[in-house]
């Protein structure tokens, strides 16, 4: 095995040289948690490239390490080994250009809707802050609730508020960790539509963690399927259906069944 070959296998980001459209490159990422003398190997040799403006879903069984991977990419956790680059620069920590939307409600309960949305806008002049707040209040359908506090809102409204807070700082990437997991199925479906609408309007690069197969097929350009712990990438599936997607189309069902197989689930309950 020559040294050149070694480099190829070790460094995904170099072996697929960053073209202009590469947004995120994860290469050979491993993560081992050590606690009370025991160590848990969570991520194993993760390689992943995401293009600018792409909507990528990360799908995998509970506890496999999806959140861990997202946390590493978001700069909240460091990998045990491997590289993570965004726009060709290594990720060194959280950054307002990339906003994380939390699985549990991450809105600040002590701030109003308006206060939450303008939370990250403290460096902007007042008129620009106000302009953005009103723009995003409108976009996520919270008009009339500007002065409400989160505990006065429904779960779906809080989730939209958190998305608005993230969008207001005009990030170029969004990390969403099962953002709709706690919502009822009707609200969840509506929220997916809203997110797609926003994504198409603003062209963010989105990394979306879910363990819901349908959700991933409805939303993603590509679905990254992870295995159980220690998580590796089993496969990456292209979802080649244009939006808006017909949920009963043959191709949709085909892709969904393919993913079910991939995860190793039967087609019957």
């Amino acid at each position, binding site marked *: 095995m020559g040294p050149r070959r070694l480099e190829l296998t070790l460094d995904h980001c170099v072996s697929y040289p960053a073209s202009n459209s590469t947004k995120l490159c994860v290469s050979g990422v491993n993560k081992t948690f050590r606690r009370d003398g025991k160590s848990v190997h969570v991520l194993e040799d993760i390689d992943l490239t995401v293009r600018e403006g792409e909507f990528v879903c990360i799908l995998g069984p509970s506890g496999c390490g999806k959140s861990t991977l997202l946390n590493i990419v978001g700069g909240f956790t460091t990998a045990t080994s491997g590289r993570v680059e965004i726009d060709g620069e290594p990720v060194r920590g959280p950054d307002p250009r990339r906003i*994380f939307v939390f699985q549990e409600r991450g809105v600040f309960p002590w701030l109003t809707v308006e206060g939450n949305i303008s939370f990250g806008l403290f460096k902007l002049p007042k008129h620009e802050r106000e302009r953005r707040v009103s723009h995003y209040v409108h976009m996520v359908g919270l008009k009339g609730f500007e002065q409400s506090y989160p505990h006065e809102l429904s779960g779906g409204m809080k989730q939209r508020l958190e998305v608005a807070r993230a969008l207001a700082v005009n990030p170029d990437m969004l990390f969403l960790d099962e953002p709709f997991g706690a919502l009822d199925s009707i609200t969840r479906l509506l929220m997916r539509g809203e997110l797609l609408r926003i994504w198409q309007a603003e062209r963010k690069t989105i990394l979306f963690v879910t363990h819901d197969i349908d959700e991933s097929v409805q939303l993603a350009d590509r679905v990254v399927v992870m295995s159980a712990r220690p998580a590796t990438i089993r496969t990456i599936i292209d979802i080649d259906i244009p939006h808006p997607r017909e949920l009963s189309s043959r191709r949709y069902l085909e892709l969904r069944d393919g993913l079910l197989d991939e995860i190793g689930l039967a087609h019957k309950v």
Partner: protein
Amino acid sequence: MKPWERIALPVAAGAVIVAIWIAAVHVSGTTVFPLPQRVLAGTQELAGKGVLGSYVRDSLMRVGAGYLLALVAGIPLGIALGWYPLAARSFNPLIQMLRPISPLAWIPISIVLFGVGDEAAVFLIFLASFFPIVTQTMNGVKEVPEMFRLAGLNFGLSAAQLFRRVLFPAALPQIVMGLRIALGIAWLVVVAAEMIAVDSGLGYLIIDARNAGKRYDLVVAGMLMIGLIGLALDTAIRRLETLRALRWGFRHE
């Protein structure tokens, strides 16, 4: 509950208790324990001499001073302990050991330190308020959900901004809870402190009324005054909990 019930029900309950009080005095034939009307007359007598007002003021001043000192010292210390786990691990056992010692047990030491007088009473109130404030503040800061901190960092906040815009507001309901607990205890303790260390205030009124002339009408008048003021203080500080920016942290109804 309808608004009128809010007033009418407690008034009715109070009337029943007063009726039982009157009946009990008559049935037992006691000559020591006063009837309500005697207590009322005693209160008027105190108010007429001007001592009631000045005693209430003295008690409130002592509570105010000790409580304010505890607040000024306790909140920053609690924040520091909540923020730096190492500091908490070092000092918390000591604090939790001192906390269950009744402030009354400190009376001898406070008299040795400050002599008989206002300072000793204020010191006791300070001690009584300090521990709940420190403990609640520390827990409040410690228990701020990790994701609030991460969200703050994500938006590019500096450490100082993170403290001011995330940690402090997130911990504020717990801090306010500590303030409320502390105020209740402070009011309990001022009465005891005044029985020993000073010669004014509601605590002094009670002990003096008994010692000087077995005036139990004045003793009971003093007790009722203490109760009413305690209720007023608690009602006032509870209002804080209903502020819109704080209400999220309290479960109402």
